[in-house]
């Protein structure tokens, strides 16, 4: 044990490392090109010791990158041992199995040297606007359909950028300028992190990060172990059926609370899909770990010590452990659902702590136009390619309503409608809460959104749909009802599928109705005043007050208490 002042020094250096990675992440957000990074915050950034242990990670929009990027640095070190790295070297990959789960995510790793000696590695990841192949489509059948695959390699050697690689990237993607711009942003953010780390090491006269790293990892591991030790030991299982692509998908988990670890095994989950909704294990691990940690120990910073306490396994060739060459572009469809399954397990042993199921999967709109997709006019077909980030309703919490139009477990942000309209011919005619979509419950599920979109051009446009909860809704918990299912359709009336590419004919509108979150607790126990408010605010349909909640309202909208009591008693007796 070190002296108590050393004790405080460790805390301060730890805080400083967290601030270093925060600066690293900020640099990426501010210089990035893809909307995913700059508007939605879909990035990650972290610092690692020379053994590849993650010491600190910025709190950014994407839990999906947490474990995956943490593990990816180990793959880099296996391919390029620390001793072979030189100042000015920068490494890159988008390998879905060694990076963060699909080709769209580029991971860049930069070693940092102090007095000629390697002391740390900075890593960062962002989602680029395009990587070639089928684009933002879940209709790929193999990873070969999905675009350019960059194995672990040097992006720069001793300060010289790999122009051959950059030229190959330019030739393979639809938005070469933006993608290459993002690669520069990744390089710049690691550089910034490296400078800050060296400032800190010089100020505190540290020759290396060994002692500090050991302290951070072991303390976090100990803290997780202490949290886990207070939980009842045992195993709990839960499963959830979601829409899938060609067939419904079962996600099944068994969660075991051990002495100092939480084990989550996905045996019993469905096999692989023939489409691009398969999830590599690294991404399964990422969202599972996020879900567990948010429920058990949200206050412990993320690092190798924290993550080691959550062990995730799944049989190979299942949809949660898809091997090469399975198509994986839409792996978030599966990944985003995993915390809900984890909470199905935890709810049995820690009742009253976890939320009901939510929309969980993002309802991002990937809207496109161009030759071969929406027309055959060659360069005469006006092309655009835009993704906006949107969310349905989240699940109700044990003591709070679910958040409306809010992502969970993802933490991204939306893109303003005015920005989308300024860079495309699209017009968003409506973007509002979808009345009545929240699952009934003592605590109501969050509401989804309704959007209506058309093009100002006299031309068709297309949507790469990849949505969930179109058939199987978010279920309630402890007596709460399910949220509304999501729908996709045309203004002229026809329904569209929630997966796959579809055209919106010239002059028609795309109607998007996003799902609601599940309710929590018996709807008949909901405070009638809140039901009255929800009717007054237009958040539920007037007839849902009686139908779902057993609440009768006076003419003036206030609850009629005697008649409500009678109706609720009759309902309860049924």
């Amino acid at each position, binding site marked *: 044990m070190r002296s108590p002042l050393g004790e405080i020094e460790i805390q301060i250096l730890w805080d400083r490392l967290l601030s270093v990675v925060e600066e690293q992440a900020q*640099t990426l957000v501010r210089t990035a090109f893809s909307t995913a990074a700059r508007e939605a915050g879909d990035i990650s950034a972290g610092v690692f010791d020379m053994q590849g242990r993650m010491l600190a990670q910025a709190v950014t929009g994407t839990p999906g990158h947490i474990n995956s990027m943490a593990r990816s640095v180990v793959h880099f070190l296996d391919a390029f041992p620390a001793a072979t790295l030189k100042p000015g070297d920068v490494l890159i990959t988008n390998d879905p199995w060694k990076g963060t789960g699909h080709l769209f995510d580029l991971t860049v790793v930069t070693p940092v040297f102090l007095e000629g000696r390697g002391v740390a590695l900075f890593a960062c990841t962002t989602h680029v606007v395009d990587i070639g192949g089928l684009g933002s489509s879940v209709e790929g059948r193999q990873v070969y359909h999905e675009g350019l695959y960059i194995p672990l390699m040097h992006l720069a050697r001793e300060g010289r950028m790999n122009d051959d690689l950059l030229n190959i990237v330019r030739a393979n993607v639809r938005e070469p300028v933006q993608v290459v711009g993002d690669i520069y942003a990744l390089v710049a953010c690691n550089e910034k992190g490296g400078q800050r780390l060296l400032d800190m090491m010089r100020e505190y006269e540290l020759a290396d990060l060994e002692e500090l790293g050991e302290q951070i990892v072991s303390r976090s591991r100990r803290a997780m172990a202490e949290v886990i030790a207070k939980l009842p030991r045992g195993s709990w299982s839960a499963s959830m059926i979601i829409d899938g692509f060609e067939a419904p998908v079962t996600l099944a988990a068994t969660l075991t609370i051990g002495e100092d670890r939480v084990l989550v095994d996905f045996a019993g989950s469905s096999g692989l899909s023939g489409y691009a909704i398969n999830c590599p294990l690294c991404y399964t691990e990422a969202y599972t770990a996020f879900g567990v940690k948010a429920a058990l120990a949200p206050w412990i910073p993320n690092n190798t010590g924290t993550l080691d306490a959550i062990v995730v396994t799944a049989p190979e060739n299942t949809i949660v452990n898809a091997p090469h060459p399975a198509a994986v572009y839409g792996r978030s469809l599966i990944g985003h659902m995993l915390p809900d399954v984890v909470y199905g397990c935890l709810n049995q042993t820690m009742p009253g702590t976890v939320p009901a199921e939510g929309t969980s999967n993002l309802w991002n709109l990937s809207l496109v136009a161009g030759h071969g997709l929406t027309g055959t006019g060659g360069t005469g077909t006006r092309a655009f390619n835009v993704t906006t980030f949107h969310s349905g309703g989240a699940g109700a919490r044990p003591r709070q309503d679910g958040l409306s139009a809010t992502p969970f477990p993802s933490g991204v942000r939306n893109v303003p*409608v005015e920005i989308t309209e300024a860079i495309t011919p699209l017009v968003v005619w409506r973007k509002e809460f979808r009345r009545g979509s929240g699952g009934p419950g003592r605590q109501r599920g969050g509401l989804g959104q309704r959007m209506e979109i058309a093009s100002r051009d006299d031309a068709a446009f297309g949507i790469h749909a990849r949505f969930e909860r179109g058939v199987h809704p978010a279920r309630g918990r402890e007596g709460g009802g399910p949220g509304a299912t999501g729908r996709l359709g045309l203004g002229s009336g026809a329904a569209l599928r929630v997966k796959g590419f579809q055209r919106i004919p010239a002059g028609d509108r795309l109607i998007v109705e996003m799902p609601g979150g599940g309710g929590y607790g018996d709807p008949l126990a909901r405070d009638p005043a809140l039901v009255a408010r929800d009717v007054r605010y237009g958040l539920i349909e007037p007839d849902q007050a009686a139908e779902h909640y057993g609440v009768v309202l006076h003419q003036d909208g206030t609850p009629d208490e005697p008649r409500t009591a009678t109706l609720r008693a009759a309902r309860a007796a049924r």
Partner: protein
Amino acid sequence: MTQTARLAVDIGGTFTDLVLQLPDRSLSAKVLTTPDAPERAVLKGTAAVLEQAGLAAADLALVIHGTTLATNALIERKGAKAALVTTEGFRDSLEIAYEHRFEQYDLYMERPEPLVSRPWRLEVPERVAADGTVLLPMDEVALTMIGETLAAGGIEALAISFLHSYQNPEHEIRAREILSRTFPASVIAISSEVCPEIREYERTSTTVANAYVLPLMESYLRRLEEGLRALGSRAPLLLIMSSGGITTVETARRFPIRLVESGPAGGAILAQLIAAQSGIDRALAFDMGGTTAKITMIDDQKPQQARHFEIARAARFVKGSGIPVRVPVIDMVEIGAGGGSIARVDPLGRITVGPDSAGSMPGPACYGRGGTLPTVTDADLVLRWIDPARFAGGHIDLHPEAAGTACRETVATPLSMSVEQAALGITEIVTETMANAARVHAVENGKETAGRTMIAFGGAAPLHAARMAQKLGIHRVLVPVGAGVGSAHGFLGAPIGYEVVRTRLVPLTAFDAVMVNALFTEMRAEAEAVVRLGAPDALLREVRSGFMRYRGQGHEVPVVLPDGPYGTDGAERLRATFETTYHGLYGRTIPGLEIEVLTWTLSLAEPKPLPARIPDPAPAEAPAPSGWRRLMDPGTGAEVEAAIHNRAALPPGARIQGPAVIVEAETSTLVPQGFQAGPNAAGHIVIERTGR
């Protein structure tokens, strides 16, 4: 006789500060704020300070006023019953906000309630496209009915915000005309005037916040003007804005949202004046009070400016958890770290400090008013940095034993430390928290903290400034004279000025000099109309900036543009300016990319001469210490014997060696081991490192 007396008034949460500036001297007064009718305190203080000076209200030449009234109304939700009229299909934009969880790991996060609840967000069929074309004409019949609904509903203020109104404001202007048939036009705010910028949520949020405080500010300003007139004042009343500029009552009535954070802006201006006086080109203003600390970068004697601010962030000062407003502001980072910030041990066995504060009730444990949790002030007391007998001018009795007990029970015992080590840990952590925030704030603006001079004011700053400076790579700290009424002093140095903004997306490859010149002519006219009210004859200084980016990027970089008008080389000049700025921020430019300007601003101000640099004083002999105190040195953590000096007894040019404490009525300046300190010619204490 000619009036020469200038009065500055700053209404804060607890005290209303007044400074009366006369040609040969200045006087100050502090009275308790009267929250129910803030003008009462102002008028009482004005009478008091005038009497002190032996003057009458008729002798006042100018009254400059700053107030947190608008900010407090937003934080405490005590504004008007407001409604929003918006484009059909978009009434929920205000509540959907960014579709974002600002607390990634918190399953129980709640968003703040919108200022206007859903039933009072009313929709009109109308639609303007991104290029300003009308896609759907406005339904005026529907609007007339909305007017009746609002009148019947007892609505007191109204915001109108339509999509793309920054590009074409005609529908908003027409809607105001129609609604003013049933509603006073003076309480209607339209987004194309309040915040003509792209991004619908932020523009709407700003407009709604403006409407929300309109009636309150309108009536307060009227009462204040009447009150001053009744005292006999004929002086113009000017208001300080969050940008640090001052404006007329007329403008303040229409755009009260521009007055938020005017108090802290005053502090930044004070730091600016001191930077000029002391010849500091790169300064960092550090203001630490009871509940929060604020940090501002001041380069070339100009405080850093921004166009985005968040009011009423949720408890933990988390980004994205407040009400966003887009108005010109002095860019500062605010941290929940002050003398009253509470220390605890988290489940990882780490000391955390703040962001919650013990406030004044119960206050720190050492106040003896029932507080049992240790605060930064308690830690300061345990370390014997504070003399319990003279805290806050001796107005508050401190109980060192209560401070010790609190530090022991909450921090020392759980961590198996001595009480002094725990107290040192608390001060170290709070200083580190502030330093980290300063560093991230600097990087977000492409700046560094190292090598700056810190200007430290506010009750708690002089105790922690030297240690904080060490952490930021700063070697010199300045503790100004009379930092206690800093903001009001700052007001007197503020220029009359105004900033206007327009969004027009202009790729440099399609740069239309005629259009851009016309845009700036229009902006200049709008700004001048406001500035001339307060500065009818002054020669005005114009600064243009563009918020620019590479095409495809989402974040714009503010770039100070060359003076116009622009000719055929306009695009080339703008490109060169952008690349220089971008390189300065991120260390590189990106070859071959198209550059575009999204938003344009023009700020117009009377040139306000900054104080001249005061030469360094001749060395002077320091008097003998008035006493000695054993205390814990912040840098080394060792117990040392520190000299105590009275600030008033130190002549300019005198130097004393740390460890030492320089005491004065409102605060104490701690000079750690390895530092020396003494007043400069203006009386500001300069603390410098003498070695590591």
